[in-house]
């Protein structure tokens, strides 16, 4: 698939960088402002999709990209599960326990394990949406030929 004209490429460079930073901000402040893991993860996937659509699929190396996204999504959901199983050994011995201390309401470092869960689930949602997009749109040209 070919890329687009020069104006679209330059504007997509600026906008993709801004959207990526905004997505990270919404994930990390998930327990203070509206947002959370799912909204931020979908925004990060959106910034990658914008860059791929503006530059065309000839400029990315496709085989490395597909195994990269599958590996990222698998590793991040494995970390989230390991953090949930660690509730068996710390504090009251139940699965899915909240074992870090809940600090003062309104600070950045507060609310126990909720910010860590937000980060891992956000990375997993971004990688899964990017894998779905690549498998449906980009790869279909190669099966025909």
């Amino acid at each position: 698939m070919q890329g687009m004209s020069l104006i679209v490429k330059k504007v997509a460079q600026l906008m993709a960088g801004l959207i990526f930073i905004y997505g990270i901000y919404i994930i990390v402040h998930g327990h203070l402002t509206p947002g959370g893991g799912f909204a931020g993860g979908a925004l990060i996937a959106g910034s990658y999709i914008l860059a791929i659509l503006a530059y065309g699929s000839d400029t990315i190396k496709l085989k490395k990209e597909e195994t990269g996204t599958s590996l990222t999504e698998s590793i991040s959901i494995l970390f989230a599960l390991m953090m949930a199983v660690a509730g068996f050994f710390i504090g009251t011995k139940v699965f899915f326990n909240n074992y870090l201390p809940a600090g003062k309401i309104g600070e950045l470092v507060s609310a126990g394990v909720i910010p860590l869960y937000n980060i891992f689930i956000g990375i997993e949602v971004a990688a899964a949406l990017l894998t779905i997009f690549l498998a449906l749109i980009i790869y279909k040209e190669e099966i025909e030929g």
Partner: protein
Amino acid sequence: MIVYILCFILFLVGLYGLITRRNLVKIVISLSIMEFSIFIFLVLIGYIDGGIAPIVSEKIINPEYVDPLPQAMVLTAIVIGLATTAMLMSIAIRLYRKYKTFDIRVIKNLKG
């Protein structure tokens, strides 16, 4: 009460499109419209007149929050709807590559 009736009419429009259309892409669009009507209905039940968004802040004294439980359920349901639509479109792509049409009656009549 009229907003509940309008939500129900949107659900019925989606159901009619799901049963009577022959094109695969239109069946997927009708399923998506049915899901939208359910999201609106769940959030409408939990609304309180004069309530504010459910975020705790120390500048507001004695607040009255909108119900946060239906909002958590609809958040999960939106992402599940996206996963379902993506899987249905991948099946539609595969059927088009093999039979060169989207019509479900032609696909049903060809065997093997």
